[in-house]
């Protein structure tokens, strides 16, 4: 069943008329062509599709479009302002915290959400927050370093 949904993505207002059951992930990728948000499992178990919805982390593959009506979504494409990267993006670059990089946007969005809630996370808090995010290149050590570095940067 088609529905018409209004949502704001990275500050831009969209009105989308489509099957209401489609996931936010699919609509971002296939309708808005914002492909920075990735499909990894479609079932809420890998975190590659993480975005912020009204400032909170959500797994966009698990959210039907109908639930995003009236919501503000931030994707990886919306983090940098112009040429200047978000501190979390910088931290990932500085630590070289990506191999294939397919998990990176989900990792970065998860980190942004974490640091909003907990600007001084302990290692245990980082691990438990990030545990939903999979990296199959198994680059976890450098990703952890990047999260720690990002926390430091954002406190400065």
């Amino acid at each position: 069943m088609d529905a018409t949904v209004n949502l704001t993505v990275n500050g831009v207002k969209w009105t989308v008329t489509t099957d209401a059951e489609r996931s936010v992930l699919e609509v971002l990728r296939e309708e808005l062509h914002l492909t920075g948000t990735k499909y990894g499992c479609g079932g809420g178990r890998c975190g590659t599709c993480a975005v912020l919805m009204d400032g909170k982390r959500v797994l966009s593959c698990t959210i039907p479009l109908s639930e995003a009506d009236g919501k503000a979504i931030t994707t990886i494409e919306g983090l940098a302002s112009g040429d200047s990267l978000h501190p979390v993006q910088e931290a990932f670059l500085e630590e070289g915290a990506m191999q294939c990089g397919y998990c990176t946007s989900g990792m970065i969005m998860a980190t942004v959400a974490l640091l909003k809630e907990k600007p001084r996370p302990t290692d245990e808090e980082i691990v438990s927050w990030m545990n939903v995010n999979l990296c199959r290149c198994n680059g976890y050590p450098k990703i952890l370093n990047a999260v720690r570095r990002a926390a430091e940067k954002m406190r400065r």
Partner: protein
Amino acid sequence: MIEDLLDETVDPQLSGQSDESCQELKLSRRTFVQLLGAGLLITVTEGVSLGRRSGGRSRGSITVAARVHLNLDGTITVMTGKVEEGQGSRAQLTQAAAEELRVGADRIRLVMADTALVPDDGITAGSRTTPYTVPAVRRGAATARELLTRLAAKQWRVDGSALKVRDGAITNPKTKQTITYGDLAESKEVAEAFKQGVSSDVAVTAVSEWKVLGNSVARPNNRDLVTGAHRYPSDIVRPNMLYGKMLRPPSYGATLESIDLSRAKAMKDVVVVRDGQFVGCAAPSSFRAGQAIEAVAKTASWKTTTAHPSSKEIFSYLKERARSGRSRANTRGSTEQGLARAAKALSETYEVAYIQHVPMEPRAAVAEWSRGNLTVWAGIDWPQRIQGDLARAFGISSERVRVIVPDMGGGFGGKHSGEAAEEAARLAKASGHPVCVQWSRAEEFTWAYFRPAAAIECKGGLDSKGSLIAWEFTSINPGSAAIDTPYNIPNTRILSVGSDSPLRQGPYRCLAATANNFARESFMDELAAAAGADPLEFRLAHLENQRIRTVLETAAKHFDWPARRKRVTGDVGVGLACGTEKNSCVAACVEVGIDRRGGEIKVNEVCEAFECGPIQNPANLLSQVQGCIIMGLGGALREEMKFEDGRILNAGFADYLVPRFRDVPKIDVHLVNKTDIPSAGGGETPIIAVAPAIGNAVFAATGVRIRSMPMRGGLLKRA
């Protein structure tokens, strides 16, 4: 075909060496400039001939122009058939070219894996980029530098050896005359000179002189990865593109007898295709395509085949079907006599389950037809092979097929085949639109190929002094990688034996080396225990290979092996293992914690030493080693395909457990930089020491020997 894949990864000598004649692909200058994208100006004025070989590594036979182009802005475009899937080839090949062209890495624009533009560098697999493609690119770049120097010398009427090349400029120190690569980009003489073949004996820069190689150069397009700008194969968007979904059989070997397509055909904007066993739908959204497939799936009637073994009985199934094997060349002495003379003899069988690569990006492709020409963007490991496969599938010549591999989301040996590419191309052809196909996670878990299961039978004999005098090793099904023992044993018999795999199997990071090394290094530990020897001393006593000794001693030293071995308790054990494969050497020491009540093995710490010759990019190598260690934990402790009646029972992350942040132990990596040999690849071998070291640590703590991967802590509950 998968058998071929197995062979070629097991043995690099078996593939990619056909000496078919050099084909010429002619592109007009206009097309070429367009292909390389805006902002790039190409030196050539007439036509560009990209030398390429059909099916095989191009080795020295291509022209310099096929490898190197000077651009007016002083940058240099370098072309390679290798793909980037997270292993770091983009940075490494950029460094290789920069080193020989005497420029910084930021001056190189590397064009990878586009059949219209790049030479065929063979498959990206088997750790071959470092030993084969890096040298090929270096020779291409060094030849280009020499030709340019010669041109400058000719222009200035001096001897070329008097000229210096630095930072992209050729200088005559005497006259202070200078000409830059950018200046030469306009030269007709360069275009003419670059038609020459890459010299096979051109001198490349000695390790001691490296300025770009040997440094931790970051991945050149890393910024696009943190901004989401990079388009992976699954991210390609074309005008009026549709999304495709395929009908999958309910079980392996099932054949479609009848199906009613009418309900899907009646759906708005849906294209339905049936061609024999192939049924697919394309629609303006994945969701709609999925609904269409669901609608037709309900009407399908299937003929299923019976007699599929389940994962429970897989090892007896493989053993019963084991073929007779040929002894390896290094078989020596007589194991019958050795075992008969032995003071102690052991005989054990090890088992390794099928596992899946689980790349973060499942198979994906976008296909587009235009006037009988097919362009495909796909996540695959060898563009030229998939180009050939597609040409055959559609009955057209390869010249009409262009395959492009955007840097993709992981592979680990799992993306040698081009299923999604062909599916997308079929749907695109039928619908008249570009079509994107991305496999679901469940499809990737079920229809991609698996790392082979293994049953490995080991026999060993010790003399009265505790020396190993007999070694029999029969490896059933996984392949022969790392099957030979590096230990000095007078009587050996080593066999690699094929079987009848019920699952589609193929390459994986280090493939059979993990299974073979797990069995060997676990069994070595059993023999050390039987000899009453320390596992480190026992290995060293039988080990002549200096490179393995070095990594073993390095890991043991940093781990503080002797002291920690003395501190082993029933809850905390330490173990070690080593090995060699693909011309690199690894050793690991691990500490495990045992939770007997919960039946859990927790890896607390891994200390690994790794050596693959001169290190070309230390930061990337560290990432590879860390990644191998953690990926190795998955296969060691949890990963296993479960199947029954031709169906996969755990085709998702809920039931197939891959390592997560929580599983990451303390990791201590020591990269040994050995500069007097050629560099070898480093993205695979670091995985092979992990599982046996864990098993050995579990044994040290509990006295229980777990002889199967994954090693289940549940076994320890009973102990």
